[in-house]
C-alpha cells in the first residue's frame, strides 16, 4: 500500500491550487473561451488563433496530443484542446502568456539538443516527442540516459500545458471545449444533467436499507 498526499492537501491544491494556476480566472471569460473552443472545434474552416501563430498552434497541438494521445479513443487533438488554450491565453489565463511565449522556444531548444537537425516538436516522431516530454518528468532523473541544460521556461510550459490540456479535455461540453464530449466518453461519464438510481453495478440489486439490515441480522444470527 502506498502513501500519498493527504485528502486535505489534495483539496487545498485541487481547489485553490489549480485555480491559482488559472490565476485571474473570470467566469464569463472562461465560458467565452470554452464556447470558442467548441465552435472552433466544430467549424469546418479552421478559425484564426487569437494568441498563437499558426506555427505555434501546430506545436502546442502536437504537445497536447502526447499528453492525452489519440489511440482507439479520442485524445486532446479531437477534443480541440489547442483552441481552448488559445482563447484562454487572451482571456482568463493572460498571466500564462509569458509561460507560453518564452517556454515554447525553450522547449524547441530542448528538441534541437536531443535530436540533431530538428527544431520543431511537431517534426519529431511520436516516440521522439515522448522522449522530449519525459525529459521534464519530475522523477525521471535516475531513469534518464543523459542530462540536459536546465530550462525553467520549458519546464514551466510543460507543467502549465499539462494542466491546461486536462482541463480542456474534461471541461463540461455544454460550455464548449471537450468537443462532442470526447473527454467524457473516454472516462465513461454520461452527458446528462440529472440522474436516477440505480447509478452503477453495485446498487442495481440493493433491496433497500431496512431489508438489507434485516437480512444481515439473520445472517449474523445463523453464525
Amino acid at each position, binding site marked *: 500500500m502506498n502513501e500519498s498526499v493527504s485528502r*486535505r492537501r489534495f483539496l487545498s491544491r485541487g481547489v485553490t491550487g489549480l485555480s491559482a494556476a488559472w490565476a485571474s480566472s473570470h467566469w464569463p471569460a472562461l465560458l467565452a473561451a470554452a464556447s470558442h473552443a467548441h465552435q472552433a472545434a466544430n467549424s469546418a474552416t479552421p478559425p484564426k488563433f487569437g494568441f498563437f501563430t499558426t506555427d505555434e498552434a501546430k506545436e502546442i497541438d502536437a504537445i497536447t496530443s502526447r499528453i492525452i494521445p489519440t489511440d482507439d479513443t479520442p485524445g486532446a487533438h479531437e477534443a480541440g484542446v489547442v483552441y481552448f488554450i488559445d482563447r484562454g491565453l487572451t482571456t482568463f489565463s493572460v498571466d500564462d502568456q509569458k509561460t507560453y511565449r518564452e517556454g515554447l522556444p525553450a522547449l524547441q531548444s530542448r528538441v534541437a539538443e536531443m535530436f540533431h537537425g530538428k527544431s520543431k516538436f511537431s517534426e519529431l516522431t511520436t516516440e521522439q516527442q515522448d522522449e522530449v516530454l519525459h525529459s521534464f518528468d519530475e522523477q525521471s532523473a535516475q531513469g534518464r540516459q543523459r542530462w540536459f541544460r536546465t530550462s525553467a521556461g520549458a519546464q514551466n510550459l510543460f507543467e502549465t500545458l499539462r494542466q491546461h490540456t486536462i482541463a480542456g479535455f474534461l471541461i463540461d461540453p455544454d*460550455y464548449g471545449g471537450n468537443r462532442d464530449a470526447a473527454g467524457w466518453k473516454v472516462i465513461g461519464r454520461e452527458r446528462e444533467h440529472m*440522474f*436516477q438510481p440505480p447509478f*452503477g453495478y453495485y446498487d442495481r440489486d440493493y433491496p433497500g436499507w431496512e431489508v438489507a*439490515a434485516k437480512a444481515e441480522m439473520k445472517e449474523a444470527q445463523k453464525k
Partner: protein
Amino acid sequence: MLELTRYKTTDEVDFVIIGSGAAGGVLAKELSTKGFRVVVLEQGPYLTEADFTHNEVEVLKGNQLTNHPKLQPTTFRKTPQDKARRQPALVYGRMVGGSSVHFTANYWRFHEIDFIERSKVGPVPGAALADWPITYADLEPYYTKVEWEIGVSGLAGASPFDPPRSKPYPMRPLPVKSGGVIFERAARKLGWHPFPAPMAILSQARLGRSACVQCGFCESFGCEVGAKSSTLATVIRMAAKTGRCEVRPNCYVHGIETDANGRVIGAAYFDAKRATHLQRAKAVVVCANGAETPRLLLLSASRQFPHGLANSSGLVGKYLMLNCGPSAMAVFEHPLNDYKGVAVSRILHDFYELDPQKVGFCGGGGLDARFDMTPISFATVGYDMGGLPPGTPRWGKEFKATLAHNYTRSVEIVSHGTSLPVESNSFSLDPDLKDAWGLPALRMTYKDHPDDLKLGAFLKDRIMELLDATDAVQKWASAVEEQDFAYHLLGTCRMGNNPKSSVINADHRTHDVKNLFLCDGSSLVTSGRGQPTLTISALAYRAADRITALAHRGEI
C-alpha cells in the same frame, strides 16, 4: 415581487449581523421574524440559483464562491516560534449563504459526549479540553428545528449510536449509491453499523423547493435547483419576507466601533467601491466564521480594548480546531458511477466514542463513502494529486488508460474526527502581510495534537479494514500527517462560563461587551467528529432565542 427592505447607515437598527452563513443566515431570519430590524453585512456577492452552474469549469474559477487567495492572502506556520510564510491556509464561502452554499451538506448532529468530554475522560496533556456550558439536551430542540426548517434527509433510528431525538427527519434518505452499498456490506460483515447519511439536501420537493436531481455537483458548487439546504435557499429568503431584514452584499467589515462606555455602536465596512461606511446598531452579532470573527475582533483594537475587542481573556483566535481525517481510495471491477448523486450516501459512527484507556488517545470519528471529485480534479495527479493511484504517469497513454478505467470505478472512504483544542493553534493578524484593502492578513498557526494524529492512524486502519472486506481490486490510503490547510474553522472564540477561559457566555454574549454577540464555528468548545455545520446552525437558533429574551428584558 418582494419589496426589498433598505435601511440607511445612520438608522440605528436593532441588530447588525456580520456574515450570512450557517449561523448569520439563521440569526437574520429568527431576529427579523421576532420583530427586530436587522441589517446583514456580507462581504461576498448576492448570487442565486441562476448564477450557479453544473459545469466542470466551475472548479477552475473556484474563487467565485470562496475567499480569494490573491485579494485575501494568508500565511501559515506550525508554531508561534516559527516565522509564518505566505500560502493559502484556508477556504470559506464568500457570498450570501456563506459556506452553506458550497459545502458537501453532510449534516451530523453532535453527540452527548461532545459537550461533556472533559468531565468524562479527564484532562488531556497539551490540550485545553473543556466541557461546554450547555449540553446536548439544551441543543436538541434546535437541532430538530434546523432539520425541519431548512430540510434534512435521513433515517432516524438507523444508527444505534445516534443521540436521542425529539422528532424523526422530515424526509427519507437520498438514494444509495454503489459506493454506499459496497461500504454498507463491508461494514456489516465486520459487525459495524452503517446507516443512511443525513444530508442537508432535499430527497423530495418541499417548501416550494425542488428535490435533488442527483447531478453530483455538491462539494464546491452552489446548487442550481435549490435542493441543497443552504441558508441562501432557506432562512435568508424567510428573513427577506419579514420586511425587516436587509441583506447587504459586498460589504467588507473591517472594524466594530465602540463608544466611551465600551458599548458597540455599529460596524464599519468597505462597500464594493471601497468607500467606508458605519452601519449603526443597538447591538452587533458577529457570524463571520471561525477565522474572520476573531480577525475582526483583533482588527477592532482600540485604546479602550488594546488587545482587540472582547479579548480580556487573550483567547480570541485561540484553540483553533480543524477536524482530522485521513482517507483512502479504492477501485472496483465494475462501474460504480459514483459521480452521480450526492457525495455521500452511507456513513458509520461505530468509532465516534472510543475509550481512551483502551485506544491510548482522546477522540473519535466517523467514516463515510464518497465521491466528490470533478473529472478535472480526479485527473490531476502528481503534486496536485487527484483520484488516481500513486505512481500513475502524469501524462501519456498510460495516464489516459488509467483515467479512463478508474473514473467510474472509484470510491473514496473518508474519516472525520476530533481535533483537540491547543492554545497555540490559532488565527491571528500577520504582522507583515496585508490584504488588498490594506488590512493585516490572517495568519494561521497549527500543529495537530499528538492524540489527533493517533486518532488519524486509528481511523485509517479502520478504513483499510473496511476496504479489506470488499472486493476492491486496488486501494491506497492518504498519509496521516500534520495539517496546514483549514476547511473547518472552529473554536477560536469559545463559549464558557468563566471570562478568563472563554470569550463568550452561554448566551453567545461576549464577556467584555454587553451588546456584542458572536455565533459561528468560533463558538464551539470542542470540534465534534468532523461535521460541524448542523451544530453551528442549531447554536444560531438557540442564540436567537437567548438574545431575544435578553432584549425583551432590556438587558442588552
